[in-house]
């Protein structure tokens, strides 16, 4: 039973949270053409590391905010909590961010903002 440090409410019991799975999956825009296989990378393929995992959580029974968590899937230790739209800061979590195969997928490139939309899309 984890204690998850909500960046807004502080440490709370796991039962107050919902887990949103792998973090940093950029959504390809429908207007940018990619193949079905590349789209499947976004839709279905998931990082599932044994060790440090960057994932999204929501404080569902608390402040309802989403945030990112770097958690070790073997020890269940929480290494870092950081806001949506940012990437991890510690050397070891940063490394797992950078080394993910997903950083270079076509799907990720297709997520780049289009002129018609305002602002950047970050996750």
């Amino acid at each position: 039973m984890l204690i998850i440090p909500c960046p807004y409410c502080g440490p709370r019991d796991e039962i107050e949270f919902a887990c949103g799975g792998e973090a940093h999956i950029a959504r390809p825009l429908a207007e940018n053409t990619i193949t079905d296989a590349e789209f499947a990378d976004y839709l279905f393929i998931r990082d599932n590391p044994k060790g440090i995992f960057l994932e999204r959580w929501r404080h569902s029974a608390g402040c309802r905010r989403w945030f990112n968590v770097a958690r070790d899937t073997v020890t269940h230790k929480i290494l870092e909590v950081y806001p949506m739209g940012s990437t991890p800061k510690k050397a070891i979590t940063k490394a797992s961010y950078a080394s993910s195969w997903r950083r270079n997928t076509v799907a990720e490139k297709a997520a780049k903002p289009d002129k018609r939309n305002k602002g950047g899309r970050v996750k």
Partner: protein
Amino acid sequence: MSRLSKAPMGHQIARIDAKCRIDRSVPVTFTFDGRTYNGFAGDTLASALLANGVHLVGRSFKYHRPRGILSAGSEEPNALIRLGKGAGAEPNIRATQIEIFDGLYAESQNRTPSLKFDVGAINSVLGRFFPAGFYYKTFMWPASMWMRYEHVIRHAAGLGKVADDHTDPDRYEKTHAHCDILVAGGGAAGLMAALQAASGGARVILADEQNEFGGWLLGEANISIDEQPATSWIGKMTNQLAAMPNVKLLPRTTVFGYMDHNFLTLNERVTDHLSKRPAHLPRQRMWKVRAQQVIIAQGAHERPLVFAGNDIPGVMLAGAVRTYINRYGVCPGQRAIVMCNNDDAYKTAIDLHRAGARVLIADLRAQPTGPLFQAAHNVGIDILVGHAVIAAYGTHRVARVEIAPVNHNATAIIGEVIHRDCDLVAMSGGLSPAVHLHSQARGNLQWDEGKLCFRPSATHEPSFNIGACNGSFDLVAGLKEAVRAGTKAAAASGFKTASLTVPDVTTAKQNWRSAAAWKIPNGHLAGRGPKAFVDFQNDVTSNDITLAAREGYQSVEHLKRYTTTGMGTDQGKTSNINALAILADALGNEIPEIGTTTFRMPYTPSNIGAIAGRDIGALFDPVRLTRMDDWHRAAGAKFEHVGQWMRAWYYPEESETMHDAVNREVRAARTSAGLLDASTLGKIDIQGSDAAEFLNRVYTNAWNKLGIGKCRYGLMLKDDGMIMDDGVTTRLGENHFHMTTTTGGAAGVLDWMEEWLQTEWPDLEVYLTSVTEQWSVATLSGPNAAKILEEAGIDIDLSSANFPFMSMKHAHIGGLPARIFRISFTGELSYEINVAARHGLALWTHLMKAGAAHGITPYGTEAMHVLRAEKGFIIVGQETDGSVTPHDLGMDWIISKTKPDFIGKRALSRESMGYSDRKHLIGLLCSDPKTVIPEGAHAVIDPDQPLPMDMLGQVTSSYFSPNCGRSIAMAMLKGGRALMGQTVYFPMLDGTVLDAKVVNPIFYDPKGARIDG
């Protein structure tokens, strides 16, 4: 023996006159196997039975061997009894942990017809044919007989019987608790650590599974602390802790689980020990504790020695014998053999001697020395060094032993066998630290070659191990550890403490090393001779272990599963190390290389009732009710569960069947007016300058141009293109929308949209607020709807010109401020009237009154379903199942071709989305207009084909439509739109076949003429 059996009833033959923890001024009467016995307050059932000379208390699992009391604590594998009767009976409880009370009723288990004569004992005689894993090798032929064999096996297996009446009469609680330091175990070490930790003000919880604190010390006669008997020190410590406001003492409380992030679960037995239990108190309470730091002070378990006949009643653990003498004033035997590989059992020998028993020590060690050896020798106890009990005999109680000299490590008999009569064997194979909680929390273990035990090494959670559970068997060493751990734990949670002084302990110095002697030889060839047990409860013998090793079940985990060692209710507390050692020996390997099996929650079996707590019955899961609920109930409505909501399903009038009632309701809505409680629909208030853009992205259609006060139907997809939810959304202002969702989908849709806003589109200026319960909704539907509203007193013009279909108006009805949506799920003229929830019931009753003259009819969800099906409207979750796209439903019209993106858009162009054999929504007309095809029935083209059949798909909605005067159905069929006009067949479960024509799924008023009344 004879002296005991002739003793008069009720006479506590084995009771001795010693200072101990029972209260002789409070006699207690209890029943065991139909006989009444006496004991005293402070006795356990085990001590009281022993006091009465009762040793035979149970039968073993497999061989039905007579079994007695082995231990004095929660590690007990044998003495499992059924406590109580009727609804309050409970199987498999350890007699060693039951505090007796007046009227206690206990029975032995797993025997037919009686404990003394059990027919199941034939298994023991035939034991040779039932070695470990025998069932994998037999009962294979004929194959058809297995279920019969199995039936017999099942009835032979199992231990106790459940309560006679299955409804538990007791109440259970559970609660959360937070502390700085949780101390698990309140022996000497735990008490000291708790006091140290609490002395700086930290919040401390101290839990011990026993009725009093003090642990092992409660059973020691020869230890004084600060020149007082140890029990005085315990009393002083306990009082001191009890007086501290920052300390919570939890006796009778087992810490049974130790999980991630210092989350621990405790089971407190609140009233189990009382003969009269106050009804307002829970029988047990589960504590869910979050601790900053944990100090584990669980103590240690003594190991049996593995020799032939070591399971006969009267063969006990030496430490337990000492506890029975000193703590309970019971001397379990008069002619005792003490067998050991360590110094500790000498204390038992001395206490037995003092209690008046004749004692012989068989010490496996060749040259024991030291003060305890001297002391035993000095009081005149016979000591055979380098000797082992190689076999014990006796039927219902040990009567005789064979003792022989053995070599180093006791692998061979090296001299003459001696025979001795006896009525008690006290054995000690050394101590195994209770590393359970530490291991549950993923701490590591290391093997201690001197003490022959696993002890904790690195911890995984913020915790400390102290005292005997840390392998520190010396009391002073344990107390020093306690002070250190208490100080550190307090400091780690931010409390400074000054180190307490460790008290002066006076006791004979003892060597805590044990000599390795895992399997005592018995003079027979390998595999032969009487059985020597390793796991008493599951009847695993040393031969079973070597057999498993021989057959290749060499991993300790395979050994466990093949032989069932350690899988009983004691989880191998007394047997696991012996099993490992014998396996290691058989494989020529070292114990640490073999490793242990995994320690798992719970430490001791924990009541399921207490884990469920009050989350049962009405509190199992909330029921959500609308504000009109009382009215529906008074009107006799039947209800349907929709998610957590209870919705009025239909309103049967006297003697009406469901069918009748629904037909009446459906007809009323089409001929005059019906009223539906639609309050459960999800409602979301959407505000912000990007609200329309946001809707563009979450819905498939376009929203920019929707006028203020106008409503639009929207379909929401998941990003895989599958339909997720639908509903009508209304523009309240330039930047303000009111969205409705399905009842079951409400929470999910809000979460879903929040997720997109927060994670994908944080740049959008949109805020969402749930207003589901803010508004009560009554849907008035039917040709007379407008008339009734007018008669109810409405302050707006209801003409279609002023208030057209798919628009919204603010108005007052009967003075109540309302938002009225002219939308329709029935195809009739229809108004969804939203009022502040406080007025929901008033609105409802007011409309019912106003419409009475027109025969306004309340209708439930079933009629609503029929009405919408007549119109071919879908219900998400009924027509759809997570694998349906808008195209499948023939709803391409709702998909914007111009929007660059919306959730699900890209997925809709995947290869398989265009396949012509996808299931399409179609209508069905059964050839027999009276027959309603069952929902879920599957269509085929050829009903005569062999199984498995090629199926087209399933009927999703099917009703008798009183307005069409016939049955109608909707279905999802493969390539369904191409089947228009064709007949398809429905093989029924009873073998008959129905047939129906595929038609357009709009059955009533296809032109939509009725929408304006």
